[in-house]
């Protein structure tokens, strides 16, 4: 579904990604863990080209999307992204946040988009908030709207960039529940997270990243309980 090949990214002289080769299979949940500044988020943002890779390729559904002739908008509509800081549109009501993409990008009728939006709000457990504005919602509610907004585009894959890191502890659970349900439905997902328990539970595969490289990967039990790489061991001993 998603494959990267020798992916590198520089910010100025800062070599953030040093050659990443990853394959994400359909219906797979790949969880990326690692210390801050290891390049996890940058890697994720390269997948939908919010960051332009300096070198290497990204393939999505067999197509090389780092090719300059590719229409990035057509790629992005197929990949939903959820941000650490929600990034809801503050001047729009919840339902307008969710219907904007489908109506403007996919050309869905407003009635149909609203119906879909209501179904999604029900699914993420805040059906009653459709006319509220983002500032009237708690962090957990905002993030659930953000997930609904991404899902409204009917994406084939979802990217989660530390979706619970900006939340108060008591709100993390409600957001993780939504992501967990998505995983159970078979959504293809790449999840960057600091929640190790969650990583173990939903991840089909865990990638450990440090200093722009993937140092270890494998099933959760293997990476989290019997890490081979000394830096994975050091990281896990700090966070577990």
């Amino acid at each position, binding site marked *: 579904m998603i494959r990267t090949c020798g992916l590198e990214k520089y910010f100025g002289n800062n070599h953030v990604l040093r050659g990443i080769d990853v394959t994400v299979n359909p219906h797979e949940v790949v969880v990326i863990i690692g210390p801050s500044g290891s390049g996890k988020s940058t890697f994720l943002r390269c997948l*939908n080209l*919010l960051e332009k890779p300096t070198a290497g390729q990204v393939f999505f559904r067999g197509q090389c999307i780092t090719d300059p002739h590719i229409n990035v908008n*057509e790629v*992005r509509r*197929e*990949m939903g992204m959820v941000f650490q800081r929600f990034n809801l549109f503050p001047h729009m009501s919840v339902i307008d946040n969710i219907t*904007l993409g489908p109506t403007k990008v996919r050309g869905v009728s407003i009635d149909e988009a609203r119906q879909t939006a209501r179904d999604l709000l029900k699914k993420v457990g805040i059906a009653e908030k459709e006319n509220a504005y983002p*500032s009237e919602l708690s962090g957990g509610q905002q993030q659930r709207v953000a997930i609904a907004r*991404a899902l409204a*585009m009917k994406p084939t894959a979802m990217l989660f960039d530390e979706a619970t890191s900006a939340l108060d502890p008591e709100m993390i659970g409600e957001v993780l529940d939504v992501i967990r349900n998505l995983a159970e439905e078979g959504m293809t997902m790449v999840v960057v997270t600091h929640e190790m328990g969650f990583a173990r539970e939903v991840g089909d595969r865990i990638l450990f990243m440090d200093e722009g490289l993937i140092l270890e990967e494998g099933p959760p039990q293997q990476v989290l309980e019997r890490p081979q790489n000394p830096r994975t061991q050091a990281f896990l001993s700090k966070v577990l």
Partner: protein
Amino acid sequence: MTLDFSIIPGIMPALLLGTRLTVELAIIAVAIGLVIGSFAGIGRVGGNRIVRIITGIYVDFIRGTPLLVQLFLVYFGLPSLIGRPIPPFLAAIAAMGINSGAYIAEIVRAGIQSIDRGQIEAARSLGLTYSQSMRYIIFPQAFRRIIPPLGNEFIAMLKDSSLVSVIALEELLRKGQVVITRTFRPFEVYMVVALIYLTMTLAISRLVAWSEKRLKIVD
């Protein structure tokens, strides 16, 4: 010599006529400035390098030179170039409009850049194009932040329009000068002129403060 404010009723009709022209000049100038400034402000943050450079030069030149010099360039300078005179009113609104455009361009630029990067990222990640993201996400939010500084720009134009008195346009200040030749009461007349400016600028800044509060509620 004592102050004589009994002349006031007699001079008010003339001064109010001048006030009307002052307000007209400021409104037209800011309207022109809004059109120029919107394009120039967007050009300043846009992706096209050439456009960024051109708009940058425009903004720097206008903000780095006095409005009076710009006015002279248009009114006295340009006719020698094009071979015929430019009517004072046209010269005034042209100079003021172009001047205002540069300041408004900076207001628009700052307004756009004040919007969190996450907003455009969220919009683009949904598959919206750059111009769709600008139109539906960035501009509506930037617009609210632009209103108050735009009000201040209007106040500045209202005051700076007094400069066009030097090209014989009978706006408020010029009307005052004319009235003085009739009444020989410069202090009283200039005082009234100043108070008329003050009344207008105070009213507008109140309006700006009120709109600022209103817009914050929605934010």
